[in-house]
């Protein structure tokens, strides 16, 4: 699905406008999302303002629930979070892997760099300034595209899920064309969340300690725990690697500029030499920057996404484990009640409820985890293949530039 969006970044003193860019098919994390005609969701446009991003969520549907077949609304990041949290808090969805929430759009670093550039404008030549500004704009645009993609992936996942797509909040999110008045959590609520998380992780440890009768789940538990940690590590390391790569590309940029100046100043035969090499480095630097960007997209983002997904899968296992513990406790309570012959009916009902809950979760969890594996393998395959192809393409491009320049330089001597 092609889409276009336009970015306008307004700063106090300067307006940096970037033209509309059309973005190819995304949903990079998940390959097999059914492009189901009954419900198609995408982000058709996005606008970045001072401290918030406004996403235009576009829906095409043949479902009877919606008033129209095609419509759009504008949503902000907080509303996505509200939707995600509503899924998590819904007991009915305890047995599903809730699609992880998109990360907050973070332009702080980019904004800071842009500001520094503006301040240092006087100390550099016009060409240098323009060049750096272009790069920063490109970086900003890349971050922007990524955040749009993350938000879109979230919506696509929900739309593709057989149960979640029917959620009422989801429909409201898609259709209600007024502001959802979802304010971000205030301090008190965030504190509450913090405590909830602490309790949950402590509880999680307890629950995880309980050995599961079911082999499948026992295996999944061990696997997910280790896998999650390793993905976290790999994600952090790949980020660091890519940052070094970007730094090296920046250095080559500066070298190219200085060589250019040397070339224009030199009185010997070297002037042509320097100019040619400067030109070469300008081009190879662009390729190096692209390599870093592609690695970021295909590898780093992949790992980050599966870090979040594996956490969501762990959360599912936790909920199931919790339900199992509740079930076992209910069993014990029932036995006690029967022994004492007191409140037996109540104990029986509780036990029934717990049993049903546990079995429901187990059933859907099993399917969810199998789907998770399928999705994961497919996503890794797609991205690793694309990564290798891009690396090859760039290396070949680089090689060709270098060889042709060498040919010219050697021929000159």
């Amino acid at each position, binding site marked *: 699905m092609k889409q276009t969006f336009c970015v306008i970044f307004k700063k106090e003193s300067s307006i940096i406008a970037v033209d509309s860019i059309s973005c190819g098919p995304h949903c990079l994390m998940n390959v097999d999302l059914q492009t189901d005609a009954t419900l198609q969701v995408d982000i058709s446009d996005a606008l970045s303002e001072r401290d918030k991003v406004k996403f235009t969520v576009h829906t095409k549907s043949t479902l009877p629930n919606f008033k129209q077949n095609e419509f759009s609304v504008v949503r902000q990041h907080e509303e996505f979070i509200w939707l995600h949290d509503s899924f998590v808090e819904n007991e009915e969805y305890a047995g599903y892997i809730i699609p992880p929430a998109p990360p907050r759009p973070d332009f702080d670093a980019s904004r800071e760099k842009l500001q520094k550039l503006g301040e240092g404008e006087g100390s550099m030549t016009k060409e240098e300034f323009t060049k750096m500004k272009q790069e920063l704009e490109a970086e900003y645009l890349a971050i922007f595209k990524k955040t749009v993609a993350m938000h879109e992936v979230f919506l696509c996942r929900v739309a593709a899920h057989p149960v979640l797509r029917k959620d009422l909040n989801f429909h409201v999110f898609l259709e209600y064309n007024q502001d959802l008045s979802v304010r971000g959590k205030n301090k008190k609520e965030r504190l509450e969340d913090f405590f909830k998380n602490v309790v949950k992780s402590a509880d999680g440890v307890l629950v995880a300690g309980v050995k599961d009768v079911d082999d499948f789940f026992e295996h999944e538990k061990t696997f997910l725990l280790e896998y999650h940690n*390793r993905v976290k590590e790999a994600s952090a390391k790949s980020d660091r690697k890519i940052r070094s790569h970007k730094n090296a590309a920046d250095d080559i940029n500066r070298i190219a500029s200085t060589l250019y100046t*040397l070339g224009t100043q030199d009185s010997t035969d070297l002037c042509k030499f320097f100019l040619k090499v400067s030109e070469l480095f300008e081009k190879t630097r662009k390729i190096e920057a692209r390599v870093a960007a592609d690695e970021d997209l295909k590898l780093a983002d992949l790992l980050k996404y599966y870090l979040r997904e594996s956490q969501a899968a762990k959360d599912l296992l936790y909920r199931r484990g919790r339900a199992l513990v509740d079930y076992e406790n209910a069993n014990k309570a029932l036995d006690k009640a029967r022994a004492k012959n007191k409140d037996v009916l109540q104990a029986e009902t509780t036990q029934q409820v717990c049993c049903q809950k546990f079995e429901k979760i187990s059933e859907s969890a099993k399917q969810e985890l199998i789907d998770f594996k399928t999705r994961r393998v497919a996503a890794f395959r797609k991205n690793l293949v694309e990564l290798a192809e891009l690396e090859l393409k760039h290396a070949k491009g680089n090689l060709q530039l270098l060889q042709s320049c060498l040919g010219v330089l050697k021929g000159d001597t």
Partner: protein
Amino acid sequence: MSEEREPPPLPGAAQTVFPEPQDAEDLFVSAASAMESPEAACLSAEDISPSSNGPRDDDPDDLFAEATEEVSLDSPERQPILSDGPSPAITPVTPVMISPRVDVFDRSPDQDEDEEENRDTFDIQISVSDPEKVGDGMNAYMVYKVTTKTSLSIFSRDEVCVKRRFSDFLGLYSKLASKYMHMGYIVPPAPEKSIVGMTKVKVGKEDLSSVEFVEKRRSALERYLLRTVKHPALLKDPDVLQFLESSELPRAVSTQALSGAGILRMVNKAADAVNKMTIKMNESDAWFEEKQQQFENLDVQLRKLHASVESLVCHRKELSVNTASFAKSAAMLGNSEDHTALSRALSQLAEVEEKIDQLHQDQSYADFYLISELLGDYVRLITAVKGVFDQRMKAWAKWQDAQVMLQRKREAEAKLQYANKPDKLQQATDEIREEIEEWEGKVQQGERDFEQISKNIRREVGRFEKDRVKDFRVVIIKYLESLVHTQQQLIKYWEAFLPEAKAIA
């Protein structure tokens, strides 16, 4: 080698060979003759005074005339305080005293061209190798083996191996600078001292950084020697030959930073800086003005480039380290992945990344040793070039000062004419006359010196620029070739990986 030489020419012939040889070959033949027959050297003693290893004193163009006065034959150790005298006679270890040809300092430009062409068949290889630590603790030092392989006849053997320490190199530079710089010769500077680096080595840390430091220094010393012998005048300098050939070298104490000579050097440097600011030279020669400006600009840009390249070296090293650590984490991830095909692909990815990290490391070494060190060397060389221009300014100032003095003396003489002391008049007039003659001589000398240094500088700069063009061309092409190699390897690795990734089912 000397055995294969033709028998030396007749002693009579030896004397007439020297003034204006047509090309370099004759120069070496006559040097060989001097080598084989010390008698011949003695015979030509009228031309060459054995008490100095500079040219003969009576040569009017010899700028050394003043310098040779202070040499004392008796003490083989040079007096540490004097840093501007030439070195003493060669120690007894070397049986032969090589006196440079007189005309080395008085060449016409044509001969230089000839020499330069022959330099392409320049046959001398110098390598600095096998660093060894001698001693312990803070008195420890590194000793390097210097091997010279050559077929040039000024050397006594085809291949010589000597052991030298860092201060020996500094000592050599110090001697050469004091001999040649004030004549306008660009003397290649020696590598810089590094207190931090050396302390680590002394303390005995066998870690990677001190190993790299020693390697960096070894390479720098080698380049320094190669540049020095590339200079036609320096190659034949007895100090250089002694450095390369003699197994014992008097310890260059004066190179220590805190020695008397060291402090004197610092004082001189400060004085020079002040002088530079106060001398306002009327540049009549546009060539010099233009060249000075060009070297200023070159200096600025090379420093900037050097800084960027150093940053690149640093970041590439970082990239290599981070890639290695990512490779490990990818391997771990592959291990915990329970889908077999994906697990294998991830392990393969880890292997590819590991190979790539090695590639990055190799590339960063190339970045460093090829480009960064070259730039560092040239930044220092340009300082030497600027120094030579400063010397010319000093020569001009000296000439001008002499003219001023002469003027004063002439005015004093004129005044005397009007004084009314007949008895003292004759004596005073004679004195003044003498002084005027003396200063007239100094003015003439000053002018000649100034012209000579200007001529020398033009020639030196021409040679320097030629070398610069050659150096940069060669290095940049080598560097690009290293980049090509890296990309080719990358292609190989990713091409091997692609089918693995596609095989994930």
